[in-house]
């Protein structure tokens, strides 16, 4: 069994409630930070921990925090990104609904560290039922003196609110999220300025993912060095992996970074192998945006070594032969899966979710969906594969926010690794269609 940090008490009955959470050491980090540490010392521990943003980008959290501008007399904010919308990802939902107080605690400790007096949790609208769970946890935290005025007699004040979205993948992009929180359409902002300088209401703001903030209590309680000891190299700590697709045991697993991909897929502790005794065909390892890899490439590196579940190992081989850890949305596909049809669901997704601000993304995602639709309908020609390739190449890097890249990478990687399947599909769509019966 690997080290558990976030889900250490996941199986304790009643851990959702304040009393049980507190009995298992909950809110100790707030007490320790406020009573015995300076805000700067908390930031220092987070830097030492090597914690990286768990939403997908993997940017070092301590460094992100240190960019936060602190002009006199200007409020600053922490906004928790609970907009979890990356297809294949459901770990934040799991964590918030099972152990809501770990997020509340993490936000209080982090807010103290950054001198923030008002924080928001921006949660996707589809998770409305979790709003109630979070509101209850926040209420309990207020009632027990962890939120509100003069916390633990320190003179430090903090208010924490939940803010609900209304269905828009783009709002997981931090500047779109801030626009949405201001009551606008979720159109990403041009950066710079970064939120650390001009974020919510034009004030300095840190936006962190649920899982990132939830790791802060452990780091404060045990020290950044202890956290850094878990995991492997620059992939410090644990990662929540959302496992789905054709596996025997889908679900959320907290892994210590550095286990092999093979172990993750086949061991009983995690996914328990491919369902129905089938063979693994491909994996999308970090949410829909990251490059898809065929079985041999996800299991092994080019040099023959086993690939590991870590930022570095998953990226090994670059975009030609590697992928990314991303949000940890791990989708496994068995030998019967049509890569073309799966890609169609991604292309349709990105077209639906493009905010429409940038032409390459707005037009390109529509084209990609249409071409794949045409393939599935059996009307495509071989040159459509090249057209698909050209379109994705023209989107990548040409948009304000990373949604364009996110839409392009799955298409590029599917063609790169499975071109012959696209060709077969174009030549004889009916033969392939029989297995998955995609109706469009």
């Amino acid at each position, binding site marked *: 069994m690997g080290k558990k940090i976030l889900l250490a008490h996941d199986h304790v009955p009643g851990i959702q409630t304040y009393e049980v959470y507190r009995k298992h050491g909950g809110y100790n980090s707030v007490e320790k930070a406020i009573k015995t540490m300076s805000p700067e010392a908390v930031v220092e521990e987070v830097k030492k921990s090597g914690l990286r943003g768990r939403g997908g980008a993997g940017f070092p959290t301590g460094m992100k925090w240190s960019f936060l501008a602190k002009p006199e007399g200007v*409020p600053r904010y922490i906004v928790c990104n609970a907009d979890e*919308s*990356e*297809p*294949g*990802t*459901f770990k*934040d*939902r*799991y964590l918030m*609904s099972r152990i809501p107080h770990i997020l509340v605690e993490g936000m209080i400790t982090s807010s103290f560290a950054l001198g923030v007096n*008002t924080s928001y949790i921006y949660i*996707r*609208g*589809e998770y*409305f*039922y979790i709003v*109630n*769970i979070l509101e209850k946890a926040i209420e309990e935290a207020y009632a027990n003196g962890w939120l509100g005025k003069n916390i633990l007699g320190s003179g430090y004040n903090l*208010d924490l*609110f939940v*803010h*609900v*979205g*209304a*269905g*828009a*993948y783009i709002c997981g992009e931090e500047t779109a999220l801030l626009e*949405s*929180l*201001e*009551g*606008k*359409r*979720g159109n990403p902002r041009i950066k710079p300025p970064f939120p650390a300088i001009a974020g919510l*209401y034009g004030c300095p703001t840190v936006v962190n993912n649920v899982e990132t903030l939830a790791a802060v209590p452990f780091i404060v309680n045990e020290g950044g060095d202890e956290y850094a000891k878990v995991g492997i190299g620059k992939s410090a700590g644990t990662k929540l992996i*959302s*496992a*789905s*697709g*054709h596996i025997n045991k*889908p679900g*959320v697993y907290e892994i210590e970074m550095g286990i092999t991909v093979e172990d993750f897929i086949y061991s009983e502790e995690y996914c328990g192998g491919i369902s129905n005794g089938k063979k693994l065909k491909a994996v*999308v390892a970090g949410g*829909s945006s990251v490059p898809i890899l065929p079985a041999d490439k996800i299991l092994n590196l080019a040099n023959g070594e086993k690939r590991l579940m870590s930022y570095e190992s998953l990226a090994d081989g670059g975009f030609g032969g590697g992928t990314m850890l991303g949000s940890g*949305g791990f*989708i496994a*596909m068995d030998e019967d*899966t049509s890569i073309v*049809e*799966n890609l169609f*669901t*991604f292309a*349709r*997704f990105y077209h639906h*979710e493009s*905010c429409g601000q940038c032409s390459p993304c707005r037009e390109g995602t529509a084209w990609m969906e249409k071409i794949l639709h045409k393939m599935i309908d059996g009307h495509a020609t071989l040159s459509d594969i090249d057209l698909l390739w050209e379109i994705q190449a023209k989107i990548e890097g040409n948009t304000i926010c990373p949604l364009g890249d996110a839409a392009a990478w799955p298409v590029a990687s599917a063609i790169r690794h499975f071109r012959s399947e696209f060709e077969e599909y174009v030549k004889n769509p009916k033969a392939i269609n029989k297995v998955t*019966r*995609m*109706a469009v």
Partner: protein
Amino acid sequence: MSDIKFSDETLAVANKIIARYPEGKQKSALIPLLHLAQAEFDGWLSPAAMDYVASLLNIQNIEAYEVASFYSMFNLQPVGKCLIEVCRTSSCWLRGANEVIQHLENKLGIKEGETSTDGMFTLKAVECLGSCGTAPMMMIGAQFHENLTHEKVDAILETCKQEGKRKTYLDNVVVDKY
């Protein structure tokens, strides 16, 4: 002005939400208030409902329209009492989302995007709802229905019919196994 307005109880909730944002930034409450309006005014946002929300926040009506039209969860047309939202993205597709949609179409006698003639059900295919590990899934109101089978879908439809009431995102639902 139309006579559409919140009940006293909902208005109190709306005011509590507005107070969560700094002075002068009450527009932040727009999305939460549109949710309240949709839940209270028959499951969709009519122009009158959006105008009313705009008036509560002292913003232009157009500001409410442009936001309401951006987000997938806001219905700008009437929908059935039970809006069935079936996830169709990769992980759900891999585990049979298309069959679920087809089964619902057959069962309800409508196509995806349509409302049954009795006004009870609207069927909508949606993008990833974060339920990939328990696929296939559908959402009705705030409730996630997961690991769907045809039998399970039938039972859920039956319950909806028997209850006969409108499901909204604001419903207090029984938490699923997560």
